[in-house]
């Protein structure tokens, strides 16, 4: 049996992005011995890549904003499938969480009167996103990291958790390996917080890094927890499309917030051609009104480029399919045009969008202050995740909490831009607080050696297969899975294509049993990919099954065979759980109705 090292903590946080760090800071501030485990180095998690901003109704730029408007915007964006309790906490608490970052040293861009500046973003009625140029995530993660390291967190960098450990119905720890040496570790804890982020690597074109293999979703699922809303995967409308090696890399919505416009190859602002009824009242009639909105004119309504992401992504998709796309299969995103409207436009663009400017110059040889960019949809975010209780963030398994992208519920059928960074802060804090409480009340659980051994055996299996022994490269299997998901469960979905995908996933699961690793255990990416496959396959199956079950188009899910919304489908969330026989079970769960006060808030802010 392979040896392992055991670490004892009160709270174990898996993931060191915004959600994980915020949870760990809270748990340790409450006096709990807290461990943070992450796959990469500290400060490199996905959160570092976030660009546009963090949504909070600070009302610094427009005093008409309030938590109520933020609440209504988020519910509308999520098409009312959201967990309303989470939406309420989020809208009420985000401002305090953002201000707290300032107290910890974050330096946001400023308003003329010296307060935190806020910018426009899709689906938000008023300028609401606190930001630092287009590197808000960096500011956030660095602030949390620097605050956290002085608080005595035990950080385990470059270690990957492969399974959760249970004592009866309760989660009491986790087992994982360190990437550097390939040795195994067990963390024993009174409570575990999952903050592992998303699943983007299940698709070919994505803005997500290698880390996003759905580990947390799959760990929770294997431990018996429920996942919710897995059919809702956000395709961000603007990813890079050229050159091929950068395909999918994100182009922040901030470009459109600053006045950038979308055009097809004929130069037409096609977004004006298709404005959904429920957004008509809030959308500009003319190009001029849209421009004035981006420049802070309070009497103007937002340009259609700032409609929700699902809608913009589909419009782009339609333009390209109809043959009105750019040479490399995207559409044009033009910020350079603002030269016609303001002096010093080039300087303004460089100041407001410095990393976009740099990214295009360096990677695509293109100067965005002079030329339009070519963009197209990219897999970006998963709304679905571990089903949690709205106040505590505890999953359906006692002792297991989830926060951030890995948790489901806040965003419903579609997430508004900027609502993720605020999600991390609000629910990271809540998860940390309640995990600490749970750990203090319940103490440590018992470790079951057999669970540890079987997790370790499964992780080492790829070395037994060997390429000669009929084993297969994990990269090939992963690549085939990404292609299937991209082609059949992507931005436009159809019943029979998804059935084909499901069948394909089944075959890939068989192949994955023979995924082989060659070489050593030390820092071996091939081995790590072989281990990740199982998680990717679980989330791919969950996404596909839920997408098939929801026979309607709503939010991020667009079904060509059911292009409209259905009344029946508006009444349930889909919940996935592992059945006793190990197969994936699917259930319709009624959406909890809004309490009267909140229903009124939605109505007032329609």
């Amino acid at each position, binding site marked *: 049996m392979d040896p392992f090292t055991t670490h004892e903590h009160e709270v174990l946080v898996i993931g060191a992005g915004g959600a994980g760090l915020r949870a760990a800071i809270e748990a340790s501030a409450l006096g709990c011995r807290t461990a943070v485990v992450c796959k990469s180095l500290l400060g490199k998690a996905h959160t570092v890549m976030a660009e546009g901003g963090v949504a909070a109704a600070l009302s610094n730029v427009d005093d008409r904003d309030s938590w109520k408007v933020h609440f209504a915007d988020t519910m509308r964006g999520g098409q009312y499938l959201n967990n309303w309790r989470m939406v309420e906490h989020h809208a009420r608490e985000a401002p305090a969480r953002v201000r707290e970052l*300032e107290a*910890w040293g974050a*330096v946001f861009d400023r308003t003329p009167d010296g307060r935190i500046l806020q910018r426009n973003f899709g689906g938000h009625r008023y300028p609401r996103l606190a930001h630092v140029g287009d*590197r808000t995530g960096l500011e956030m993660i*660095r602030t949390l990291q620097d605050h956290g390291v002085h608080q005595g967190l035990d950080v385990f*960098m470059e270690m990957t958790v492969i399974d959760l450990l249970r004592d009866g119905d309760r989660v009491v720890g986790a087992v994982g390996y360190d990437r550097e040496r390939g040795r195994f570790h067990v963390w024993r804890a009174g409570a575990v917080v999952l903050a592992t982020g998303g699943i983007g690597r299940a698709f070919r074109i994505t803005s997500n*890094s290698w880390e996003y293999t759905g580990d947390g979703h799959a760990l929770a699922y294997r431990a018996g927890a429920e996942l919710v809303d897995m059919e809702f995967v956000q395709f961000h409308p603007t990813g890079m499309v050229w050159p091929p090696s950068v395909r999918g890399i994100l182009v922040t919505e901030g470009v459109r917030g600053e006045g950038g416009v979308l055009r097809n190859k004929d130069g037409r602002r096609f977004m004006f051609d298709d404005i959904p009824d429920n957004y008509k009242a809030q959308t500009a009639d003319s190009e001029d009104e849209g421009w004035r909105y981006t420049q802070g004119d309070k009497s103007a309504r937002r340009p259609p480029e700032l409609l929700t992401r699902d809608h913009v992504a589909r419009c782009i998709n339609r333009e390209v399919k109809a043959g009105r796309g750019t040479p490399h299969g995207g559409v044009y995103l033009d910020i350079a045009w603002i030269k016609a409207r303001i002096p010093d436009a080039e300087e303004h663009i460089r100041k407001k969008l410095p990393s976009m400017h740099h*990214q295009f110059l360096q990677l695509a040889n293109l100067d965005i202050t002079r030329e339009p960019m070519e963009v197209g949809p990219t897999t970006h975010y998963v709304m679905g995740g571990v089903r949690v209780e709205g106040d505590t963030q505890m999953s359906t398994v006692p002792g297991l909490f989830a926060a951030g992208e890995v948790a489901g519920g806040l965003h419903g059928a579609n997430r508004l831009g900027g609502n993720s960074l605020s999600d991390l802060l609000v629910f990271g804090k809540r998860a940390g607080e309640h995990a600490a409480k749970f750990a203090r009340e319940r103490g440590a659980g018992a470790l079951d050696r057999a669970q540890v051994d079987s997790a370790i055996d499964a992780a080492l299996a790829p070395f037994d297969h060997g390429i000669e022994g009929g084993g297969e490269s994990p*990269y090939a299997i992963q690549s085939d899975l990404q292609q299937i998901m991209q082609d059949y469960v992507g931005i436009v979905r159809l019943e029979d294509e998804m059935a084909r995908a499901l069948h394909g996933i089944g075959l890939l699961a068989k192949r994955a049993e023979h995924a082989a690793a060659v070489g050593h255990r030390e820092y071996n990416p091939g081995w790590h990919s072989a281990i990740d496959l199982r998680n990717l396959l679980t989330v791919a199956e969950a996404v596909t099954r839920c997408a098939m079950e929801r026979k309607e188009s709503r939010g991020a899910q667009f079904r060509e065979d059911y292009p409209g919304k259905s009344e029946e489908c508006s009444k349930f969330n889909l919940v996935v759980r592992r059945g006793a026989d190990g197969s994936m079970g699917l259930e319709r769960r009624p959406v909890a109705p809004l309490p009267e006060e909140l229903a009124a808030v939605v109505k007032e802010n329609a």
Partner: protein
Amino acid sequence: MPATTFRIWRGDPTSAQFKEYTTDISEGMVVLDAVHQIQAENAPDLACRWNCKAGKCGSCSAEINGRPRLMCMTRMDELPPGETVTIEPMRAFPHVRDLVTDVSWNFGVKERIKRFRPRKPDAPDGTWRMQQTDVDRVQEFRKCIECFLCQDVCHVLRDHHKHEEFVGPRYLVHLAALEMHPLDTEERVREIRRAHGIGYCNITKCCTKVCPEHITITDNAIIPLKERVVDEFYDPLTRLLRVFKPRRGASKDG
């Protein structure tokens, strides 16, 4: 660009050498893409770090043809055409395997630097007021992605191994960001001179040249910090005044 040959440092501290790989290069590829392609085609166990592929996370630092750079932001078509590309790990840090080095020393340094301590809030609602012009400089420093390329190139660390005595350019930038933060009230000048060893820097500017975020490390961060140290330690008047009048955070940036 057709097939290109790469010399990549392979192995661990006990035994390592360059190995050659040839792979096809297509339009727009960066060095990191080539490394991934080699991984998928020939060397599944080739170790390297990366996350964002867009110059935002600072994971993929390496020495490309002898220059410290981010692999994800180095385009193949800016390297000399037809020539072999050499990729090595950062040499100033202990080797782990292939292109991966042990950079944990850096994380330890940060723990030794006193954290941010803000002045009392300016407004009754617990918030502060800062003008954009007062935070521009600090924001420049806070662009740092902790790639540690500047640490890799600084001769004080690389050649003279003064890791005990000198925090390196990355952490002088960090200190500058704290010291010039309009809200900060902490006292760090003594440590900057002693424990953090600013005197070791002899302003060669090598760090500034490699910084992928184009932070003007030497001119904007290190030299002003050096001036502060000089003012504080060698100017009797400043010292005297400090006894009577504790510095106000807001006037720190002078």
